[in-house]
């Protein structure tokens, strides 16, 4: 855990942070609003205090109630992975500014997040589906997307363990979605 990094982050981004800076093992986590993504990442990328030059990973997360995009950054100024979570995107129309102006290589990762979660990255000039066919209508990694499991329909097949995660069949739709942990 890099306490100095935490202090620097709190000092620099105190206003835009939507939650406390968390640290566990070798990870430091900050949460920001979706609109602050370009500004914060640009500062992290360029400012000599931070120098987070490498975008290690970009992921979308569906918490069941909202959407998040998660950026993992690496810098030689710190021994920690920095995790930037852009929080609170609406599930109906999640939108977040693209970071392709900083890292062109984020283009495909954003395409993947769009393909899997439906998150629209504003500013990505090639935001189309990457894995699923172009006429596909759904977003598979969302939590309300259940695996089609013909075993449950065929009388011969056993019930697979996968189905355990689904709630009772006649429960209301909202109750069936797994919720992300509060943290």
């Amino acid at each position, binding site marked *: 855990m890099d306490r100095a990094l935490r202090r620097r982050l709190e000092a620099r981004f105190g206003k835009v942070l939507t939650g406390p800076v968390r640290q*566990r*093992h070798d*990870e430091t986590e900050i949460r920001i609003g979706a609109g602050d993504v370009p500004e914060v990442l640009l500062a992290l990328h360029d400012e000599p205090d931070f120098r987070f030059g490498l975008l290690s*990973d970009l992921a979308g997360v569906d918490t069941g109630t909202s959407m998040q995009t998660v950026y993992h950054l690496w810098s030689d100024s710190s021994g920690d992975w920095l995790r930037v979570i852009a929080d609170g995107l609406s599930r109906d129309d999640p939108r977040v500014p693209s970071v392709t102006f900083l890292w062109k290589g*984020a283009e*495909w990762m954003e395409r993947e997040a769009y393909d899997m979660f439906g998150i629209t990255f504003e500013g990505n000039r090639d935001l189309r589906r*990457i*894995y699923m*066919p172009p006429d596909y209508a759904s977003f598979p990694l969302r939590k309300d997307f259940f*695996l089609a499991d013909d075993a449950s329909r065929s009388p011969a097949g056993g019930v697979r363990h996968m189905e355990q995660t689904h709630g009772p069949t006649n429960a209301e739709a909202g109750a069936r979605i797994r919720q992300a942990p509060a943290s």
Partner: protein
Amino acid sequence: MTTTRTPFDIPAHASSDDPRVTLDEQLGVFEPIPPYPPRTEREAEFYTLRDGEMFVNMGPQHPSTHGVLRVVLKIDGEKVVDLDPVLGYLHRGVEKLCENADYHQAICYMDPLEYISSLFCEWSPVMAFEKLLDVQVPRRAEYIRVLSGELNRIASHALFMGWFALDLGGLTPILWSFIERDEIVEMLAALTGQRMLFNYFRIGGVNGDLNHEFMSRLGAWMSKATAHIDSNQALLNENEIFVRRARGLGVIDTATALQMCMTGPNLRATGVPFDIRRAHPYSIYPELDFDIPSRTEGDCLARYLLRMDEVRQSLRIIDQCLHQMPDGPVMAKLPRLIRPRPGRAYAAIEGPRGQYATYAISDGTDQPYRMRIHDPSFIHLQSVGLLTPGNLIADTMAIMASLDPIMGGVDK
């Protein structure tokens, strides 16, 4: 206007050889242009032909796309003007499957991702889950992980050499490198029980201790490994045709490579000695003595030679592992059913192709809530679109091979 088939035209017993069954459709010409209006600016730009240009559809069945990749090339004569990789032909939805499997089962899905270097695909999720659980891995298990991982790295790089030569038209190196790989794979089969999809790393350790057969095979191989690998490379390293084709091809500079999120040998070939084993140490790598080779040219030849240098460093690491191997258990004590506390964990390791990373979220149940798999092949493949335009068709394969993507990892 396509003629519609009615079921009355065709007898029920018609075989597929019946021309009425197979040739009733209108004669169609396959064009790689998608049959819908362009959705993005980039797609509209790509699928617009200027004078003298044409599309060539390469793949998903093509000898040198390293799996089922489809690349639409826009060419002007022999020159590639632009290209558009189309993914998803091997997409299995591993992330979704992992969310519906418990933590042990999720590791099982990792091996087929990059089937050339399976151990590295297991390593990062295992590390992420250990972080979630706060498990201390026994030191002997860490040493065994590093030992088997470096062996797998050598196997992967040996195969890279063969593929690269094959895509440049050389027939022989692929078979020589398969001989090397086969010896390593047999060795790992004696250790892990499988030849390709090892499924060896467990949360909190490894699946079994070192055994006699593995050690005897390893000893026999180590005694001749350096000589063999050098001899195999002699065919390519000095060959004028090979060097002339690879040198100065697909040059990428440091700033662009970082912009493209490259890691691993492809980044190191541009002059940055960035290696997660040193930059963000994990496992027992801080205790080991090895160098991070880097080259400054950033072309295909540099990427090739850099991997060959890494093989030598891996041999050094294996040697040290064998000498420093401590005694002790190879598995931490863990319950059978794992329910980590709610939380998030990120673990990245340095694989033969770059950074393999896993981002796992636990919600307190026995199944990961979200499991993001970051694969270097996926990241590196998009650089092909940056490096290739302006080169010839033959160079497309050379550049693609030098970036060393594995489609199993690209398509997840």
